[in-house]
């Protein structure tokens, strides 16, 4: 986030800014120096245990930038000493002249300086400190809480289109921040959120706190504390760059140094104006909670229920017999790819979404298009609430192409642009696609994405370098969707062939799988009885999403089993009874 207090900075007689972007700080300086990105420069760093890594650049600076080391070296009178020399000279001093070259080479090669971890320090907890209660609000009324934004942090990533378009966990908002408040407070204020074809419309509220005022769109978050409003930092930047300027509101304008993270005495007022937000999953999942439960989309049980009936997930729906199709079944003599996603493990962190976007050259489409429901991400995290609005359980469900065995999309495509491969993949043939969108209409999972415009930026040079050369860049009027990272499958197949050996289980990792911190995603060959994915699919928790439609999805889910601490209060207020996911007899149709 650029420094935004000109008065203080302007007193400095000479102001030089070294940065990646010509941002708000650069604007107030006499000089701006183009900084080399971390991936373009030599450096060194310490890990959490003190181990030293020598940081190597991945690429020569694209725009002739200089790293901080190089600039400091210049100031210290070393002329234009290159970053490599600076780091190397530094370590020459530390390693000593004795076999320096060997040690340096090894450190660079290994990525870590052997034995550089710092000794452990014994620490003791100051007695009684950890039971100190959180600071109480000074006066009753509303409290404001400031939080780093879940995708762009404190604002430093505001110019990153992938992160801007990444739906924020829980709220599923993109491209801006909002005043997050509880359903009860929203009802008290008379805030109405509704969905329209051009986005989610909501009330613009005015927040008054400690003498400052800010107009922010309100957004209702089930489970939010009632008398509190959360505002994410990092938005409202004037000069973040081509992507990030002028989005959202600047929460720093309300923040005070005497209460950096929260403070009491907030006043909130409905302005009567409306705002449009780009939300990838509208609030219907709140309104139509019973629909979610009746359809058994997310299956979950607590430990006791699971122990009583480990097959609870499979018993929730009936799968039609496998031969119930007009068309002959596919046969797989070689591999047959499949995937499982463990809902017990998924924390809804979104890493898979960005990994997929990066791997598969998925374009960023902007707020207006997202608001119209045209976001392009191939994997999304569906969020469902369960059990009342005050303190619901939250469920995350990553949804990507299911690569159905009876794929509804394949039958309806008039030009055979989406076809079944002999390894069970549901392939998209981009140059065959004419764009009728029939496949998307007929896809019950709605995982297909359409290039309504020419979303890809063909001209910006840096974006050309960003793209994955193994993945086709799609043009206007073409449907696209998850391919199970077919390029990775093919690469692994080629490697195996070159080494004259069969493909090994686990050798192919899809992009989403490889970044999942919880290891929730497992991909592999379901024809191989010993593969991990086959093992996962034989779990009693394994179920197919909407499998009652006879789509026979290859991506299946492992139902979530939760183990809540019985000593923790489960619920407060109405709706306290935990709505079992097996509910299906509710009055709502």
């Amino acid at each position: 986030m650029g420094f935004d207090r000109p008065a203080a900075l302007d007193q400095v007689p000479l102001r030089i800014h070294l940065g990646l972007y010509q941002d708000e700080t650069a604007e107030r300086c006499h000089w701006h120096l183009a900084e080399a990105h971390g991936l373009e420069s030599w450096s060194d760093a310490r890990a959490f245990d003190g181990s030293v890594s020598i940081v190597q650049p991945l690429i020569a600076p694209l725009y002739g930038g200089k790293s901080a080391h190089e600039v400091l070296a210049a100031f210290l009178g070393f002329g234009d000493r290159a970053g490599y020399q600076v780091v190397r000279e530094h370590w020459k001093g530390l390693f000593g002249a004795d076999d320096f070259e060997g040690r340096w080479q090894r450190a660079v090669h290994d990525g870590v300086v052997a034995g550089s971890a710092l000794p452990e320090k014994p620490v003791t907890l100051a007695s009684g400190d950890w039971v100190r209660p959180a600071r109480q609000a000074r006066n009753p009324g509303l409290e404001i809480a400031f939080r780093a934004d879940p995708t762009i942090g404190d604002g430093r990533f505001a110019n990153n289109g992938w992160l801007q378009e990444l739906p924020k966990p829980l709220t599923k908002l993109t491209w801006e921040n909002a005043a997050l408040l509880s359903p009860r407070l929203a009802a008290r204020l008379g805030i109405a959120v509704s969905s329209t074809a051009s986005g989610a419309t909501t009330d613009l509220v005015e927040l008054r706190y400690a003498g400052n005022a800010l107009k922010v769109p309100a957004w209702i978050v089930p489970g939010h504390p009632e008398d509190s409003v959360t505002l994410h930092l990092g938005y409202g930047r004037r000069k973040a760059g081509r992507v990030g300027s002028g989005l959202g509101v600047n929460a720093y304008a309300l923040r005070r140094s005497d209460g950096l993270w929260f403070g009491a005495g907030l006043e909130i007022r409905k302005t009567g104006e409306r705002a449009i937000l780009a939300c990838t999953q509208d609030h219907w999942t709140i309104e139509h909670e019973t629909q979610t439960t009746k359809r058994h989309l997310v299956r979950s049980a607590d430990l006791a229920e699971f122990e009583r009936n480990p097959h609870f997930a499979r018993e929730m729906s009936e799968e039609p017999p496998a031969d119930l199709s007009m068309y002959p079944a596919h046969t797989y003599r070689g591999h047959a790819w499949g995937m499982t996603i463990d809902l017990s493990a998924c924390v809804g962190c979104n890493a898979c979404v960005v990994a997929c976007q990066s791997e598969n050259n998925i374009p960023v489409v902007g707020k207006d298009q997202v608001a119209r429901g045209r976001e392009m991400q191939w994997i999304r995290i569906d969020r469902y609430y369960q059990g009342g609005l005050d303190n619901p359980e939250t469920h995350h469900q990553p949804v990507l192409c299911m690569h159905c065995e009876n794929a509804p999309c394949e039958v309806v495509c008039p030009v055979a642009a989406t076809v079944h491969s002999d390894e069970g993949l549901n392939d998209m043939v981009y140059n065959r696609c004419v764009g009728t969108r029939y496949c998307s209409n007929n896809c019950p999972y709605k995982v297909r994405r359409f290039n309504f415009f020419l979303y890809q930026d063909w001209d910006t040079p840096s974006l050309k370098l960003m793209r994955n050369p193994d993945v086709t860049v799609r043009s206007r009027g073409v449907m696209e969707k998850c391919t199970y990272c077919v390029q990775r499958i093919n690469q692994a197949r080629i490697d195996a062939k070159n080494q004259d050996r069969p493909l090994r289980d686990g050798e192919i990792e899809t992009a989403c799988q490889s970044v999942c911190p919880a290891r929730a995603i497992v991909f592999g060959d379901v024809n191989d009885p010993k593969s991990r994915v086959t093992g996962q699919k034989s779990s009693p928790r394994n179920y197919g999403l909407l499998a009652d439609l006879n789509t026979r999805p290859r991506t299946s889910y492992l139902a979530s089993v939760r183990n809540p601490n019985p000593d923790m209060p489960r619920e407060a207020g109405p709706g306290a009874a935990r709505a079992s996911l097996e509910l299906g007899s509710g009055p709502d149709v």
Partner: protein
Amino acid sequence: MSSANPMDLPGAPILGPGHTLGTVTDKIGDVVLTRKTPRGWLGGFAIAFGLLQLMLLAVVNLLFVGIGVWGVTIPIGWGFDIINFVWWIGIGHAGTLISAILLLMRQEWRMSINRFAEAMTLFAVACAAFYPIFHTGRPWVAAYWLLPYPNTMGLWPNFRSPLIWDVFAVSTYATVSALFWYVGLIPDMATLRDKTGSRLLKVVYGMGALGWRGSIRHWHNYETAYLLLAGLATPLVVSVHTVVSFDFATGLVPGWHATIFPPYFVAGAVYAGFAMVLTLAIPLRWYYRLQDFITMRHLENMAKVMMATGLVVAYGYVIEAFMAWYSGNTYEMFMMKNRMTGPYAVMYWCLILCNVVTPNLLWFKRLRTSIPFLFLVALVVSVGMWLERFVIIVTSLHRDFLPASWGMYAGTKYDWAAFIGTIGLFLTLFFLFVRVLPAISMFEMKTILPGSGAHGSGGEAEKAR
């Protein structure tokens, strides 16, 4: 003739009194051959042509910017494009029904309306054809891949897809309708050729008449060809909209996946088609003073067909709702509840008002024979049928299986421009048609003149009077 022939029933005549062979030719032929283009025609044409320019705007924008200028999105992948396609195709059904089925059933009252109803069919199909071609946003690719042609890649279209069936159904229908219409025009073209004083028109109509001299042999061949074409066209009346309904019925989307769709769509098409014929016939007969040819009998008959098919359509709505409940299927039940009470409930209830309540007013003879009322009902029915397609397409898609993927839809200004543009295209073509070709079949009208024994059952007309 069976006794159930409506010609035998009491009622208004199908031809005004006092006409001779000459007056029929003059009255109908002069509309075309007059040198002075009527002011009203010029004004109407100017408006229609102006509306057509909206289509130009919409298409240019679509081709250069992309399909995103329309309101379609994920999950509502089809919007105005397919709504309007089905709407126009439905309207296009009346022409062939009147020409072919009523011909085979020897309903002679069809003779004064079949020509312009057939023309209307062609123009409606042209408007409909606009959508499947352009709704991909890249018609140059669509036209290339959708048609089956032998190629070195050995690639054929996917014959399992209803959209491919659509390509065949609609193109066959357009071809047969055009042939049928043209064959019916040949004797009249010859009449115009003989009647016109202009050298140029003589050549033009003469070429159109294909050397028609009116010999017995010509008449014999003509009658055979016309009957054969009628036989060919008859199954098409049923098949085209059946295939169009398959676009939905074979899908698994709740609200689409229903076996009632084919008959329900065909009835809806005839219903919409007759409404459009009435919408065109009423101003046409008034402006060109053709009350003797398009009599109250015709209007009333059309109103009756409209009411009967309207009741079938209403039955379709009832069965849809019943099956949603009877199936016990969560998705179907929610779909129906969402249609009736969801964000598009207004559309649904307007549809019920237009298509269920309104046609039932035609039970009353006083209303049925009031021309302004009939005109109004015809317009209401057209709106209702548009709403029906909106409800089927949009409300089914916008909330399907996964609540996390639900969405909302609204047409953009370019959607409206394209839609109004096709109305402009339709009217432009219709204005041109009534100016250059006889809107009522002259020679067929002559067969129902008193004393004329031609065309099978000419005497029946006299009997009826």
